[in-house]
């Protein structure tokens, strides 16, 4: 539909990322925003740490259990339309630190992810490729089909808490079941 094409086209030209750099991939993300691989060419130079103005959360770096509540809180605070790119091996699956006791094995255990970019760290150009992949997805999206315009859309993901290990409330039933076994 022509208004959907206009909607998608305008979003492509001004996607504002959230500055959520966690670890080493954050340096490549900063290099992607710096002079050599200028992000402003894509309209993405408004990088602010506040989630209220951001459209895109680039999770760059290892998500640790201690940081997990904050990541979920940031995602909840972003206004729709919001997208997530999991940048780097650590954000996809925990990466080389997967076996660590303080590492969440992939940010998609906490929040829904739209594009995954492997690499350790991925080059800035690989991150741009991810942006282009996200843009390409939008060409296929319809306004009716968007996640946040559905009935009963998510009211926000419950924030995990820090206990004997990270407590993910969505797993409470499973924990009770394992305990009774």
């Amino acid at each position, binding site marked *: 539909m022509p208004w959907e094409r206009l909607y998608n086209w305008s979003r492509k030209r001004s996607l504002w990322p959230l500055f959520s*750099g966690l670890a080493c991939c954050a340096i490549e993300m900063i*290099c992607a925003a710096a002079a050599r691989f200028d992000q402003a060419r894509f309209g993405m130079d408004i990088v602010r740490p506040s989630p209220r103005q951001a459209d895109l959360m680039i999770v760059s770096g290892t998500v640790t259990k201690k940081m997990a509540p*904050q990541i979920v809180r940031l995602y909840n605070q972003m206004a729709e339309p919001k997208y997530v790119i999991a940048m780097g091996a650590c954000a996809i699956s925990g990466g080389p630190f997967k076996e660590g006791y303080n590492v969440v094995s992939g940010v998609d255990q906490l929040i829904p992810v739209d594009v995954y970019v492997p690499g350790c760290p991925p080059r800035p150009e690989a991150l741009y490729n991810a942006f282009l992949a996200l843009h390409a997805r939008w060409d296929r999206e319809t306004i009716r089909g968007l996640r946040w315009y559905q009935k009963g859309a998510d009211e926000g993901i419950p924030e995990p808490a*820090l*206990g*004997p290990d990270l407590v993910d409330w969505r797993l409470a039933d499973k924990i*009770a079941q394992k305990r009774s076994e």
Partner: protein
Amino acid sequence: MPEQVQPSQQTAGALSTLEARFPGAVQPAEYEGLVIAPDRLVEVATCLRDELGYTYLSCVTGVDYPAPTARFPARLEAVYHLFRATGGPLTLHVHAERDGLGVPSLAGVWPAANVHERETWDMLGIRFEGHPDLRRILLWEGFAGHPLRKDWHEPYYEADHKPFASRYPKGHPLRAEERTPLSCNLQYPPDWSPEGWESEAEVPVYARMDEYAAGDWRSMRTTDQIVINLGPQHPSTHGILRLVARLDGETIQQLEPVLGYLHRCHEKIGERNTWLGNVPYTDRLDYVCSMSNNFGYATAVEKLLGVEVPERAEYIRVIMAELTRVMNHLVAIGFFTNDIGVYLTAMLYALQERELIVDLFEMASGSRMMCNYFRFGGVARDLPEGFLPLAKELVYERIPRRVDELERFLVDNEVFRARTIGVGVLPPAKAIAYGCTGPLLRASGVPYDVRRVEPYSIYDTFDWDVVVRYNGDVYDRFMVRFEEMRQSLRVLRQALERLPDGPILAGKKQADVKVPAGEVYGRVESPKGELGFYLVSNGGTNPYRYRIRTPSFANLGVLGELCRGHLVADVVAILASIDVTLGEVDR
């Protein structure tokens, strides 16, 4: 049965003095250093500090020996590394029991011990009696267990050591999530239930902030103090660092860093990895300066292996290390200007030069940031053809011009001077007592540079100066960084001129490295300070204990003191002048 290692001259000297003063409390340790009885520890420590000149405590850590070793029974051992003005470490070992007798805290003797003892309590469960605030530092209050103990297994535990048998020859891929009962990296105590449970992780953090007096009367207004959080999501904390601050208006009354948001379990994974497999992991410690981290680890392991590095490899190592130093200082200055409000201008200039240096690393090692370039006995591969002309052009022409331009941009600027002169002054005695190293220490007037006091590699064959300034404020720390870049360029010019031909690796390249039993504390001067690796080997293919003493972690101990009485905006400037990288702080 390991042969009795002869103690170094320094240890023997300390042993004889201490045996005379404290008979029965001191004996030689298994491999290196002295074992001190816990009840006399504080007296011995005070004697070492005041009379024998060991004013600098670099690292406090612990090792878990669940089985008896050759000379001592099963124990939890607290290990301290002390230094004097020059020379290597004096290692002290103190034996403690699991869940029993603890060790007296040395935070009163060396304030540097404060953060290190908290980490040792967190990781190993050694209780430090008399510590002002013994809380977990990298994990959170309420976490079940002490992870670095040998009997504590992580949720994705497969085997004690890599390589795992499940990968070959019958390696059907199985994701770690499919192996665990909860399908993710979580495990809970068997009797714990989430119903009716509330998290208590934040309670002790804010409890520390509660001791304040209600505001004084100001004319016609009552004021109160407020506790705020800077971070962990913050543009100016150089990563995910949280600072809890109690403010009176805009003035900081108390500031406590909360760490651990990037704790990636390097030390536990390091014990599972093989010796060679740890080299790529060291890249990810201080991720801005990966070559320096490789250098530190390779230096430490080569001390244990007793291998000598060929000359060409030494020159290549020095070239890479000094290029890293230039790059790190550029980035530190660039990010600092970003934080104080110049926003992107100088940061982009600094990152542009970084990109050119990183092109060199990419050409030689194969990756911009995670170089994985050093091996035990040399470097991984030789310099490719285009490297030397490009490096010479950068070092002789481009970078000196750009450093001068950056200095012209900043040094006389009135706003920069107003933000940095007189802010965050660190007196030299306090800097040494808190275990600060690197530009932070040298800006306070203490000419301590590991390349000079305990020379490693071939640094003693080059003509260069240690850069010192005397005011100890934020301005001086940045002037030290500018001058250090010039000294690094001086070393680089000499190294590039004198680079000899020859082999780049001692012996053949080896995947299975067996390191003889022993322990070592190997350190290098990384751009941020002293980077030390404490390695204990039991003769196998994997480290027994892999401890990383990082400069950023130790330097952060002094942040609370430095920020007291300053404004919130100054906290950002002071933190940027300490120059931390969170990968290094939290490991």
